[in-house]
């Protein structure tokens, strides 16, 4: 409560103000239940904020892997798409994903308003926290889609896809995986704690549809059909993106407990970190074997792959399994990037790091899910190594296949329609000039593209503004003559 109306004496007044919530509760007989609820919401909102920051992570991962002439667009793209998704999720997506009922989709919660569709006052803040937390997941999934589209997609084409994806495509899968829909029917339920399939495979599948319809960047494949290197312009900014994503993932997985009960989120966070570490080490090893050097981008992709893979199992596996799951993801991501590179132009490795690692992570639950945690979460069965049988693995595989098929069909169709109407791709000339100048009318790094003589010219002609002795020494110094 903002203490605008209370005027007290000296600092004691402030203390009184600060004591108000407690006092108020004391009057209303502070219930332990409300504290429990507020603590859960506190954690969920901290996690929400962390997951929000992943948008910056994706933006900088993409910017770092783009050429300088396309660097500014990464900013406009993330801001606009995230904003459109915010509104669409509020209007439609949240209802489909979590508007209760139905194997296929929810059916209420449109234009979500506080206290409208809900029973009691006390629960409303919780719903609001759930609404915004789950939105951040939708936004992550959408951001993953763009990974394959760098440096050649029309800005105008992003917008309709963002609308469809956050209104329908992602909410459907979220309903199935998180909202009690379809995947709950597979065996004893599909284990996807924070969304290796729901969020990451969904995003990567959209990205696959996009790359198939877009085709490679100019010059990606030589006349001999072999892939050529198109180096991203800024490894430090790429690394910033990876580190921000790693940070955000603590909220992504850790927040998926939806509260603090039993302190299980502590385990989830520790397991997440071990998975990511395994991914880096896996990519380092495979990179050294395959490429003979320690490719900076591959190591970063390894971190992402480890994080994506540990996402589904993060609430289901013991510590010992996490480095293994991550390591395999790291090995896989390098092999897949090198393999996909031969035919598909995926500048950031989204197909490998989110797609393949997402599949592996989902399946790994069927191998490593521990009885203790399966019981605690209450979904599915223990994994193979605990003698849980092949049933869970089958349920996990079914979810992968269903999610992939549905998302691919819907995304491909949507993008095909966009291609047929407004078009997906900028012209060759615009691609050569770069999207910053051709789509945004400005450079991301103007001083690197505009001759400095022309920039300075804008400072006024020399006769007018330059004083008699224009460049003087800035501090004590020797003369060169």
């Amino acid at each position, binding site marked *: 409560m903002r203490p605008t109306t209370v005027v007290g004496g000296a600092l004691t007044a402030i203390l009184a103000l600060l004591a108000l919530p407690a006092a108020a509760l004391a009057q209303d007989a502070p219930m332990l239940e409300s504290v429990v609820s507020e603590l859960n919401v506190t954690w969920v909102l901290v996690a929400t904020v962390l997951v929000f920051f992943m948008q910056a992570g994706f933006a900088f991962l993409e910017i770092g892997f783009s050429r300088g002439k396309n660097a500014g667009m990464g900013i406009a793209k993330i801001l606009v798409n995230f904003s459109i998704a915010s509104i669409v999720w509020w209007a439609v997506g949240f209802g489909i994903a979590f508007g209760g009922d139905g194997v296929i989709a929810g059916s209420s919660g449109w234009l979500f308003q506080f206290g409208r569709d809900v029973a009691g006052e006390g629960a409303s803040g919780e719903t609001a926290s759930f609404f915004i937390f789950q939105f951040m997941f939708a936004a992550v999934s959408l951001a993953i889609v763009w990974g394959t589209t760098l440096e050649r997609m029309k800005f105008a084409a992003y917008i309709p896809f963002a609308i469809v994806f956050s209104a329908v495509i992602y909410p459907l899968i979220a309903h199935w995986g998180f909202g009690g829909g379809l995947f709950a029917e597979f065996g004893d339920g599909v284990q996807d704690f924070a969304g290796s399939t729901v969020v990451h495979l969904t995003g990567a599948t959209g990205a696959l549809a996009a790359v198939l319809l877009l085709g490679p960047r100019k010059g990606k494949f030589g006349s001999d059909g072999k892939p050529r290197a198109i180096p991203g312009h800024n490894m430090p900014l790429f690394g910033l993106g990876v580190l921000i994503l790693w940070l955000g993932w603590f909220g992504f997985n850790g927040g998926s407990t939806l509260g603090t009960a039993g302190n299980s989120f502590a385990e989830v966070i520790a397991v997440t970190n071990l998975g990511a570490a395994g991914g880096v080490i896996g990519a380092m090893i495979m990179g050294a074997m395959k490429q003979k050097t320690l490719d900076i981008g591959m190591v970063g992709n390894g971190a992402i792959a480890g994080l994506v893979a540990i996402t589904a199992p993060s609430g289901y596996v013991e510590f010992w399994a996490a480095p293994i799951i991550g390591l395999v993801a790291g090995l896989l991501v390098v092999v897949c990037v090198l393999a996909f590179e031969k035919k598909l132009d995926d500048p950031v490795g989204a197909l490998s790091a989110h797609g393949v690692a997402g599949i592996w992570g989902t399946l790994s639950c069927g191998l490593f899910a521990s009885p203790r945690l399966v019981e605690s979460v209450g979904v599915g069965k223990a994994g193979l190594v605990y003698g849980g049988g092949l049933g869970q693995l089958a349920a996990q595989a079914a979810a992968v296949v269903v999610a992939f098929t549905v998302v691919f069909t819907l995304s491909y169709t949507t993008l095909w329609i966009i291609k047929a109407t407004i078009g997906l791709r900028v012209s060759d000339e615009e691609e050569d000039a770069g999207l910053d100048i051709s789509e945004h009318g400005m450079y991301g790094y103007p001083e690197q593209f505009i*001759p*400095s*003589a*022309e920039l*300075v*010219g804008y*400072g*006024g*002609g*020399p*006769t007018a*503004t*330059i*004083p*008699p*002795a*224009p*460049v*003087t*020494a*800035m*501090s*004590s*110094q*020797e*003369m*060169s*003559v």
Partner: protein
Amino acid sequence: MKMVIAYVRHEAFEPIRTELLTLGFPSLSISEVKGSGRQKGITERYRGAELTNYLRPKVKIECVVASKDLMTIVDTILKHGRTGAVGDGKVFVMPVEEAYRIRTGESGEETLQAHPDAASAAAG
């Protein structure tokens, strides 16, 4: 044919370019150079150590013209390049033996600058 090579201040370039365009000489090339002459350097201080930068940035203009047009170019540069302060730069004239327009393969003086109505087109 002559190549005029001039090292000028950055601020001087835009007026030179504009006037040359008006006079019918749109074609030239520039690049960034660092020059040393009478002008003072700048000292950067960094964590207790110093690094003196004796060279100052200049724009180098290269413009190939027919010999008869030489002085038009030189005079335009001299006119706009002058502030009267140390560091205004130099103009050099060098002989050119042949010139080719890549687009057409033509050679000779007529390839050097744009078509005669260049100036009027630019103004429009």
